[in-house]
């Protein structure tokens, strides 16, 4: 089979997919990044390979996510794209007339508005932890309920507890308080979902019209409580795509396919990159008081990429970006 590889490396999770020529998901991997994006990509590729037939031929590769440049260098990507565009393209692929994409991942959340198939606006929140997957994970650990069961609890709630969810620190202390005065667990959990949705809408969607069809994707879409809270807040049904947690990677694969349309040869380096030893080192540039931390990625003594300086003097990067036509 011929296929297109998409890789989305965020700070919390790393997702890989292989799309067939017919844009079907042939294989997908969702795993934790654990602060080691290179290892995550290497292991992820290996895991992906086990799900694929032996005759697989990668015709193109794309990367996205906050480590898009790094993973692009590692695998030899044909296209490196920001995650907003990647998510929009994936959502449009699943629901062609989608007008609103709600995305909540491990470390950030986004809202993307499309009209007539074109992105017309977006917002992204990377500063505030409230409303991200990490925060929900943390709360599930604190309450001693596996995150997978969170949604089930939320659905059982009949009267959600009011939680001040505008900030993760305050939400947590408020939840503790509500527990101490005897609120039911399911009401607290659903109250938390509602607070996170309110927080999301206030921070990201101010003044914008969230029109249906709405697609909810990202790891947090697994949580049925969040879906319920969104539907209640917006008064619209919400679509959760089958592969909601790897949509960024699907977008990257679709972009890779589009970028190969002219019959270009892929620069994908092959599944063997899993076995190569990449050497990353960092040093502090003493050129000025910015004392930037420069990261260097090399293989067998050859520098593949270098970045991290404010002024750009150390930047060496294979120009894989197709952002420039």
């Amino acid at each position, binding site marked *: 089979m011929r296929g297109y590889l998409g890789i989305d490396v965020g700070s919390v999770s790393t997702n890989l997919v292989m799309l067939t020529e017919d844009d079907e998901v042939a294989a997908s991997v969702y795993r934790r990044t654990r602060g080691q994006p290179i290892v995550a990509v290497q292991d992820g590729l290996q895991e992906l390979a086990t799900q694929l037939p032996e005759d697989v031929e990668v015709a193109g590769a794309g990367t996205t996510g906050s480590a898009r440049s790094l993973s692009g260098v590692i695998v030899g990507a044909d296209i490196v794209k920001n995650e907003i565009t990647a998510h929009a393209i994936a959502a449009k692929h699943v629901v062609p007339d989608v007008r609103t994409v709600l995305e909540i991942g491990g470390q950030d959340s986004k809202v993307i508005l499309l009209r007539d198939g074109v992105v017309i606006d977006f917002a992204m929140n990377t500063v505030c932890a409230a409303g991200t997957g990490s925060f929900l994970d943390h709360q599930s650990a604190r309450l001693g309920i596996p995150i997978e069961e969170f949604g089930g609890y939320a659905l059982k709630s009949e009267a959600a507890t009011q939680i001040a969810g505008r*900030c993760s620190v*305050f939400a947590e202390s408020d939840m503790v*308080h509500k527990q101490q005065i005897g609120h039911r667990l399911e009401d607290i959990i659903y109250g938390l979902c509602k607070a996170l949705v309110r927080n999301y809408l*206030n*921070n990201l969607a101010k003044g914008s019209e969230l029109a249906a069809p709405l697609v909810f994707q990202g790891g947090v879409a697994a949580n049925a409580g969040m879906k319920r809270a969104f539907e209640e807040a917006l008064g619209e049904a919400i679509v959760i795509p089958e592969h909601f947690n790897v949509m960024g990677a699907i977008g990257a694969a679709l972009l890779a396919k589009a970028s190969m349309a002219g019959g270009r040869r892929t620069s994908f380096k092959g599944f063997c990159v899993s076995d190569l030893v990449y050497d990353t080192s960092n040093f502090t540039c003493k050129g000025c008081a910015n004392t930037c931390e420069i990261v260097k990625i090399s293989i067998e003594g050859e520098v593949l990429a270098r970045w991290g300086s404010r002024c750009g003097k150390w930047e060496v990067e294979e120009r894989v970006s197709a952002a420039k036509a």
Partner: protein
Amino acid sequence: MLGRVTERETRPMRPTIGLPQALVYHKYFPLWGEFFSYLGADVAVSGPTDKRVLNAGLEAADSELCLPVKLFFGHVLELAQQVDFVFVPRIVAVEGDAFTCPKLLGLPDMIGALGERAPSLLSETFNMKRGMRDFYKSVYKVGSVCTDSSIKVYRAWRSGLRAQADYERQLLGGVTPLDVLGQGIPEKEPDLTIGVVGHAYNVYDRHLSMDLINRLRKSGGRVVTGEMLPPKVIERELQRLPKRLFWSYEKEVVGSAFHFIHTGDVDGIIFLLSFACGPDSLTQVLIEHEARKTSKTPMMSLVVDEHSGEAGMATRVEAFVDMLRWQKGRVC
């Protein structure tokens, strides 16, 4: 296109005019309430801030605005369905050499940006920098939604000013706006005097301040505030600054804080400010610097925003009051 001002032909005979109970309300409600009533309008005041108003404001206003402005949004939306116009003046300057605050200068435009959700606004610019005549012109324009008679507007204005003067006299006599509005509780054999400084829209909004005034009274405090100080005193205190402040309401905050800091008339000072308040962010430095330099009277700054929890605030206020008593050698 925004900040729609009434057209004469659409003028209702007896308009209902909404006054949001936020921002300058606590300062000027007798003036405008009397002005509009005299002109025969029905005056509708939004209820005191509650959770619903707060949530409406948070939902509608930009998240980077300060809490009192967000609350103003909430109050305007609450009035939107009930009234013909919501009165949202653009108060640029109330004296010749100072502004109010940028957000008051841009208030009608920010409300207008709500689009279809914005009610019809009754909005005129009040700018004392342009002199009394210009100021009166705006008064007439506002009055013209109720009457064509300029003499009636003039009389309404005089009547409003009398009500305002009466109100300010009451405040100077030692009561707070809360007491005038019937939202204050009586003092309870106070054994401590606490100076509360901060913008009226922070201090007297019981939801935003988490009922600071009544809370202090309940715990045996007598509360004194900037409104109880004659303008002369405020002005004298401001002479301590090498450069004049260019925000009128901020001058009252700083002047009263300096007064309490220097006279030692109070046992402790609480400075209530809202996060994201531009002027307060700088005057906090001036006030805390002065308090530290003088070190006569203990002072606590309380910064509130929509994240603030009541429990945390209650604990801090309680602890502060306890410490003041402890220092006076009393058991708390």
